[in-house]
C-alpha cells in the first residue's frame, strides 16, 4: 500500500482485497465484550474535520480507539481553523505534535493531497469536496461482498447526484479495480462532463437499469442543488430517480439496496425501502468501523501481521 490513502485509485486489486480481508478479521473484535486491540498503542491519529460529518468522524474515532491509538479530533468549528488558520499552518502543527496519521475531511477537492505534501504521517482522505471518499468505497465493497458473496461481475447501479458525489467517484474506481460492473444512473445535469472516461456505463433511465442490477446504491441529493436548476423540483426528482417500493420490486430477488447516508427519506429513497430487508444501510455503518480499522492498521502497522496484533491482545 502507498503511505497515504487519498484516492481509491491508489489501491491495486491486491491492496483492496487485503483491506477487505483484514477488515473481516478485525470485525471479530467488534463482537467481543472487550472491543480493543493493542496494535496502535502509542500512535497518534488526528481526525482533522473541516466539514461536519458526525457519521464518518465517529466511525474513524471508534476505529482508531479499538486499535488503542491516541485519538485527537480537530474540527473546524471552535479551533484555530475557524479563526482562519491556513491548511499549511494546521499541517505544520500536526507535524509538530507528531501525528502518525491524519484523517482529513475537507470541503475542498484535493485538500488531503495538499496536506500530504506537508506532513510526514499517513494522510487518509475521509471525503474531500466533490472528489473522493475512498474508505466509503471500501466499506461499500466490503458490504457488497459480505451480502452477495462476490464482487467480480457484480452489477452495481449508482443512482443520483454523480456530479457532486465523492462516494460515486471512489466507488467507480474501486469497483472497477475489483471487477464489478458499474452503471451510473442520473439526470443528465448531474453527470459530469468527462464521465465517458470513467470505467462505468451511464444511463438516464432508472427503470431500465433496475432489473439488471445486483446492487443499487442511492446517493444523497443535496437540496441546495435545486436552486441551481439541476432539476426542477424534489417531487420530480423523486418521481424519476427515487427508489420506492414499486421500483424495488423490479430488482432481482437477491439484489440489495445501499445508501451512504445521511438519507433524505421520501426523496431519493422511500422509508419502506430504507427499512426493508434488502437494505444494508445499518450494515454499512458497522462495516465502516472494521474497514477503517483495517486501513489505519495497514497504513500504520503494515509491517506486522494482523495475527501479531491480535496476539498482543490475548
Amino acid at each position, binding site marked *: 500500500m502507498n503511505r497515504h490513502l487519498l484516492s481509491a485509485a491508489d489501491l491495486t486489486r491486491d491492496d483492496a482485497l487485503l483491506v477487505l480481508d483484514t477488515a473481516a478479521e478485525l470485525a471479530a473484535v467488534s463482537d467481543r465484550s472487550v472491543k480493543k486491540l493493542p496494535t496502535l498503542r502509542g500512535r497518534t491519529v488526528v481526525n482533522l474535520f473541516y466539514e461536519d460529518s458526525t457519521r464518518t468522524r465517529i466511525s474513524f474515532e471508534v476505529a482508531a480507539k479499538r486499535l488503542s491509538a491516541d485519538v485527537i479530533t480537530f474540527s473546524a468549528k471552535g479551533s484555530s481553523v475557524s479563526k482562519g488558520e491556513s491548511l499549511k499552518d494546521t499541517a505544520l502543527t500536526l507535524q509538530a505534535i507528531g501525528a502518525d496519521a491524519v484523517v482529513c475531511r475537507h470541503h475542498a*477537492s484535493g485538500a488531503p493531497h*495538499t496536506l500530504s505534501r506537508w506532513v510526514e504521517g499517513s494522510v487518509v482522505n475521509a471525503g474531500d*469536496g466533490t472528489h473522493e471518499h475512498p474508505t466509503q468505497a471500501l466499506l461499500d465493497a466490503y458490504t457488497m461482498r459480505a451480502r452477495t458473496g462476490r464482487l467480480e461481475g457484480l452489477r452495481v447501479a449508482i443512482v443520483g447526484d454523480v456530479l457532486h458525489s465523492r462516494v460515486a467517484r471512489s466507488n467507480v474506481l474501486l469497483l472497477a479495480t475489483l471487477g464489478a460492473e458499474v452503471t451510473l444512473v442520473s439526470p443528465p445535469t448531474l453527470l459530469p462532463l468527462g464521465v465517458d472516461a470513467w470505467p462505468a456505463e451511464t444511463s438516464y433511465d432508472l427503470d431500465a437499469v433496475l432489473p439488471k442490477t445486483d446492487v443499487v446504491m442511492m446517493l444523497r441529493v443535496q437540496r441546495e442543488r435545486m436552486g441551481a436548476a439541476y432539476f426542477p423540483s424534489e417531487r420530480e426528482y423523486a418521481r424519476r430517480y427515487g427508489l420506492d417500493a414499486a421500483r424495488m420490486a423490479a430488482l432481482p430477488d437477491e439484489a440489495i439496496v445501499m445508501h451512504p447516508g445521511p438519507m433524505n427519506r421520501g426523496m431519493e429513497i422511500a422509508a419502506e425501502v430504507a427499512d426493508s430487508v434488502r437494505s444494508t444501510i445499518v450494515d454499512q455503518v458497522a462495516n465502516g468501523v472494521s474497514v477503517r480499522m483495517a486501513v489505519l492498521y495497514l497504513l500504520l502497522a503494515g509491517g506486522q501481521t494482523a495475527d501479531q496484533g491480535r496476539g498482543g491482545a490475548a
Partner: protein
Amino acid sequence: MSWVLQGVSILGGPPTDVLVDGGVIAEIGAGLRGEQTLDAAGLVALPGLVDLHTHLREPGREDAETVETGTAAAALGGFTAVHAMANTDPVADTAGVVEQVFHLGRAAGHCDVAPVGAVTVGLRGTALAELGAMATSAARVRVFSDDGVCVSDAGLMRRALEYVKAFDGVVAQHAEEPSLTVGAQLHEGVVSAQLGLAGWPAVAEEAIIARDCLLAGHVGSRLHICHVSTAGSVELIRFAKARGIDVTAEVTPHHLLLTDASATGYDPVFKVNPPLRTRADVDAVRAGLADGTIDAVATDHAPHATEDKETEWAAARPGMLGLQTALPIVAGLGLAWSVIAERMSSAPARIGRLPGHGRPIAVGEPANLCLFDPAATWTVDGHALASRAHNTPYEGMTMTGAVVATFLRGEPTVLDGKLT
C-alpha cells in the same frame, strides 16, 4: 553611449554588426565601431518584446510584485514595453491611478510601462470608467480591460467598444460568461470530472468571443481578445477576421505549452484563469498563432504571494509568472524568427498603439532590441526569477534559449543576462 553589436543575426539572418547610437539604430554592416562592443556571435536580434498583458500588482499587492520588480523581470525576459493590467487595488479606473503606474514605470527604467485602464468603475461591470480621462492623461491609455473579470453585460460592452473609438482605443476582453463559470476551478472535461473540481467550460469563453466579435462588427470598433485558450475560440476569431471584423487576439505561453493534466496533483501553481485546456486546444492555439489568427503572444504574468498559492486548490488565486520564460517557450514552437518578432513585438505594439516599439530592425529605427541565445539552456528556479513572487509553473524545467541583452532606446537594460 554608442554600442556595436558584433556578429549578430537579425531575425536569424547572416551575421552582421549593428551600431546603436543616440537611441536609434545608426548603422548596419560589417566592421562597425562604437564606444562599447558586445560580442553577439550566435545571438539573434529581435525587436524589443512587447507584452499586452502583465500584472504588476502595484498599487495594492506590493508583496506579490511591484512595478520595479515586474519590469525588471520584463527586461530580463527581453521586453522593452509592458501593458500593466488594471486590476490593482485601487483599480486603475481613473487618470490618477494610471498616471501613478506610468510614473513608477518611468522611475524604474527597466522598460516602458503602458497602463491599461479599467473599462468599468471598480471592474464591477456596471458603469463605464472615465476612459477619456485616462486616454488623455500622461499615461496615454489606449488599451482598456476589466481583465480578471469579463465585461459580461452586452449593452455595456457595446457602449465601451463604441466610446473608445474617439481616441483610437481598444477594449481587451477577458472572455468568460460568468453564469457558466460559477465556482469554476479547471477546464471542464475528463480531468475536472476525475478531480471533482467545478468545470470551466470552453463554451463560457467562446460564447463571449462570438458575441463580442459580432458587436465589434456591428459598431465598427476594434476588439482585442485576451488569453485565447480553446480550439473553438480560434475558429470563431478566424471566422470573424474572414468577415472583416477588426478583432485581434493573444495567447499566453502557458496555454501554448501546458494542459489540464498538470492539475492532477492539485498543485495550485497550475491554477490559472482561463484554465489550462486539453492537448487538442494547445494544438489549435499553436496553429492559430502560426497562421496569424492569433496576433500576439501575451504573458498574463500574474505574480501571487506564497500564501495565496500554498493552499487547497479552490482557495488559491489563479495566475502564474510568465515574463522571463515567455520567449524560450515561444522560440521552441518552430516558428520563423520574423514570425516570433511579429507576434511578440510588432503586433502587440500595434494593438497597444505604442509608437517606437515593435519597429523593424533597420537604420533610423528606435533601438529597442532583444538579443537572444537560442542554444543556451537554463533551469527554471522560481526563487531566482526577478519577480517578488515565485509562482512559476515551470519550476525545475530546462528551458532552451536565453535572453542575453535587452536595449531600451539604445541603452542596455540587461547585459550578459543580468540587469544593468
